[in-house]
């Protein structure tokens, strides 16, 4: 219980720090989607906090996907290293093959659509 209170205090202190902060996701876009769902706030800091939380969530997912991607490419490289001289510079490309297992860990089931335009 005490730790909860501590966390609450830390978060409200953190909100103060968001006064002059620019998140990667532009505020006005976040504010639009929030307003569309009925959330209206005059406090820009709250919107920044939501933007930051979303960005962190996204970043966590992307990190998981990157680990999947690295594992996959590493196993491929070891298989095909015999006919290639020297490892070339690796490029990490995000595909659904990496994203789907990463999302699965977060409880999101993504399926490949039959058609994609």
């Amino acid at each position, binding site marked *: 219980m005490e730790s909860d209170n501590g966390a609450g205090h830390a978060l409200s202190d953190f*909100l103060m720090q968001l006064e002059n902060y620019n998140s990667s996701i532009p505020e006005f876009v976040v504010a639009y989607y929030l307003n569309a769902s009925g959330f209206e706030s005059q406090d820009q800091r709250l919107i920044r906090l939501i933007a930051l939380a979303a*960005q962190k969530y996204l970043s966590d997912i992307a990190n998981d996907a990157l680990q999947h991607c690295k594992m996959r490419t590493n196993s491929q490289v070891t298989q095909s290293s015999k006919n290639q001289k020297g490892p070339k510079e690796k490029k990490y490309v995000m595909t659904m093959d990496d994203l789907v297992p990463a999302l699965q860990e977060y409880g999101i089931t993504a399926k490949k659509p039959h058609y*994609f335009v």
Partner: protein
Amino acid sequence: MSENVEKVECGIDARRRVLNLAVSTVLLETGFDSADKMSLETLTEILQCFFTEIGNSARGFCELSGRVEPVLNDIVMGLMNMGISIQGIEQYAARPNRHVVQPPQQATAPRT
């Protein structure tokens, strides 16, 4: 003809385009060099859903306690309810070399 159609779509989905940009920025920051269109769109959709859901849920918590303006706790409750941890968000906010998506320029109407 095809150019025309694309322009119209851009006008409708300007915000989604910005979200797409933001997702790409985050992916680039994470260490990916590129991404295919489908995963990019999936992440954009997730982000869009995230904002709508948190807005809905925070407003719900706010109105439940008889307030009109949402406060910090409503948002925290909303995030908890969605099962999203905000542990370590301060470290994340203070991470080095973060990129910021610039807001798009206001387009000036062409003079005829």
